């Protein structure tokens, strides 16, 4: 199979390319940019005039709900959503039922995903058994089964000795830990940022200090043990400052922010909108501004979707009882573009935050359009607006605070290993 993507504006952050080039694909791999190789005759031509051709997006945090919560979403529905959002590789969290703490489960997940032939799935294994924060999981075996790193999802390790040992052990083998920073005692039963809005609405708050305290432990222990740590979904201004400071002397630290946090604040909860019940909670304008600056100056390395599909019934409850999370795979690109436009960030830099840097953090072969790479490609129209509604989302999770909003950035085609897996 030979594919010719013509007349597109190719943006490839890794190779610092932003120009009108044709892309030539043979047997699933990129064989040339610009000039067709000798004797190239396309079986299929994609006209990308007025469109952007970039690496398939790489998402650092998605929930696919398999195994165990197929009533919320299935691997198939969510991987369809991924490619509809231009995402060709994603890391999935281990908080499934059962928890991803056994190699067999990981192999099964990888196998099922591969059969679907949509986006690539890179599982994050459970760092501790059952995510209970007590006994380390068999990281070596999980790694062999296909885990690209280890995570506690939203569940903190309260015992600092266990956290220390986990980092030491991971550092021994060069594994990356993906940790969400939230001190669980301060955050106990909290459902919103502990500030003006929570006080008005009578919701139990999660103070910013919960992030700072957890981050202080994580950064300190990472420093002591030499572990490679990626902090997932930063939410506070203080957190950004702490990461900035830590990065000055520890090159093994990276972090991301969810696209939700770049666009929403506590005020968006309005009259108890349960779609805004998120983890971490939506914080203040000041925090949002700091996250944005952190992203621009490189303190924050990447943007993730924090895709968490929730079934409708689980959101139909009073705010605190409604299940946490928002659907996000299909919004990652558009929300990133919206942020970039507001902050006057170039398309090249913006795309890097959801492709090349994410791929680097995961240590996977993706996120760029180098020659001889497998052709994982996203083709989108940066200027086409589309309305977010349950009908326009492929994900089984229709839960998003952005419902009703019109966003620019419509994916027109997605290629995985040189095959067109999505086209609109």
């Amino acid at each position, binding site marked *: 199979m030979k594919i010719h993507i013509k007349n597109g504006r190719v943006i490839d952050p890794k190779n610092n390319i932003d120009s009108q080039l044709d892309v030539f694909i043979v047997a699933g791999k990129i064989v040339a940019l610009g000039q067709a190789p000798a004797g190239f005759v396309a079986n299929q031509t994609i006209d990308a005039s007025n469109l952007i051709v970039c690496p398939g997006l790489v998402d650092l945090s998605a929930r696919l709900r398999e195994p165990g919560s197929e009533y919320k979403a299935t691997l198939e529905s969510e991987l369809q959503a991924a490619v509809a959002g231009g995402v060709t590789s994603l890391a999935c969290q281990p908080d499934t039922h059962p928890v991803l703490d056994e190699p067999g489960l990981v192999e099964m997940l990888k196998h099922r995903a591969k059969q679907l032939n949509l986006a690539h799935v890179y599982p994050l294994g459970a760092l501790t058994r059952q995510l209970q924060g007590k006994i380390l999981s068999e990281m070596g075996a999980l790694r062999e089964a296909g885990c690209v790193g280890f995570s506690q999802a939203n569940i903190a390790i309260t015992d600092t000795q266990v956290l220390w040992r986990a980092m030491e052990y991971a550092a021994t083998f060069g594994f990356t830990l993906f940790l969400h920073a939230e001190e669980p005692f301060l955050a106990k039963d909290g459902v919103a940022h502990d500030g003006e809005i929570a006080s008005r609405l009578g*919701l139990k*708050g999660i103070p910013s200090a919960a992030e700072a305290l957890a981050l202080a432990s994580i950064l300190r222990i990472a420093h002591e043990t030499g572990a490679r740590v990626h902090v997932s979904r930063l939410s506070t201004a203080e957190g950004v400052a702490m990461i900035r400071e830590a990065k000055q002397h520890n090159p093994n630290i990276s972090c991301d922010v969810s696209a939700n946090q770049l666009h929403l604040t506590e005020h968006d909860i309005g009259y108890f909108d349960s779609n805004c019940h998120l983890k971490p909670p939506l914080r203040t304008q000041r925090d949002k501004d700091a996250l944005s600056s952190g992203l621009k100056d490189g303190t924050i390395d990447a943007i993730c979707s924090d895709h968490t599909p929730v079934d409708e019934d689980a959101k139909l409850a*009073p705010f605190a009882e409604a299940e946490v999370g928002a659907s996000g795979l299909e919004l990652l690109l558009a929300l990133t573009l919206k942020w970039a436009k507001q902050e006057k960030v170039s398309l090249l830099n913006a795309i890097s935050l959801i492709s090349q840097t994410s791929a680097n953090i995961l240590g996977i072969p993706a996120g760029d359009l180098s020659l001889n790479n497998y052709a994982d490609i996203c083709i989108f129209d940066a200027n086409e607006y589309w309305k977010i509604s349950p009908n326009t989302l492929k994900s089984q999770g229709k839960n998003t605070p952005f419902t009703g909003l019109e966003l620019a950035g419509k994916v027109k085609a997605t290629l995985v290993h040189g095959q067109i897996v999505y086209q609109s």
Partner: protein
Amino acid sequence: MNNPQLDTDGRLRHLLSIEGLPKKILNQILDTAESFVGVAEREVKKVPLLRGKTVCNLFFENSTRTRTTFEIAAKRLSADVISLNVNTSSQSKGETILDTVDNLIAMHADMFVVRHNQSGAAHFIAKHVPSHIHVINAGDGRHSHPTQGLLDMFTIRKYKADLHNLRVAIVGDVLHSRVARSEIHALTTLGVPEVRVIAPKTLLPAQVDKLGVHVFHDMKAGLKDVDVVMMLRLQNERMNGAMLPSTQEYFKTYGLTQEKLSYAKPDAIVLHPGPMNRGVEIDSTVADGAQSVILPQVTYGIAVRMAVMAMLAGGSGQVQGGQA
């Protein structure tokens, strides 16, 4: 974002919280309540305003007093009243709130009086009922208890001529109190120039000053020259733990005694939403003393709840209970 409490003509559709209601509507409710005070003193304590309507008390959280006052209010308006304690029956069988509500709608309920231990529960139900059904929030988590706030305002109006010239102190567990939040919004909306809260830091929500109140931690300073003292109930489960060391220490520091009340103006009145913990947040000599208006609050509570129900069901907001 549309205000879920008002219809497109700006009339009251649901009563969910004081916040978000214009001063005009608050005064309208209080004025309407005025005309209902007399109903209880008649030989036949009933007016036919809600005849043929079904009011459903939907209590997901235990309450005897509030439920009773809503029942009496609805019955005095000639409504048919059903009271359900849902926390023990359907919810434990896994039925969702909306299932319960839908069933009652199918039985042609016209009005829901809702109490729930989660903030936002009344908003949630109001969002899902058809437009001819009205929802009254009888307390949701820590968020709001608007009829309590209104009856407190009604009581203050009875004893203090000019709300625009008052200093009011709210004392106690503001953090967990839906009553306090409703009182604060009612007072500030009605133009009370100085609202204070007095409590230890453990019992105050984050950035409480943003609600428009002055924060005090000391009773002597906080009660100085106030016209109205509004006490809050201290829930049993907060009494011993990380919030407060003991009830004794709380009473010593924040319990309202005659001595502490003497810092306020000599003609200051004392309110309490009940039920009281005597010897914890309030001393019996104050609760039963000359400055206490705690029992009148209960009486006025019925008139205020009648007013709210009549305005919601009447639709026009022009109800005059006395002439009905």
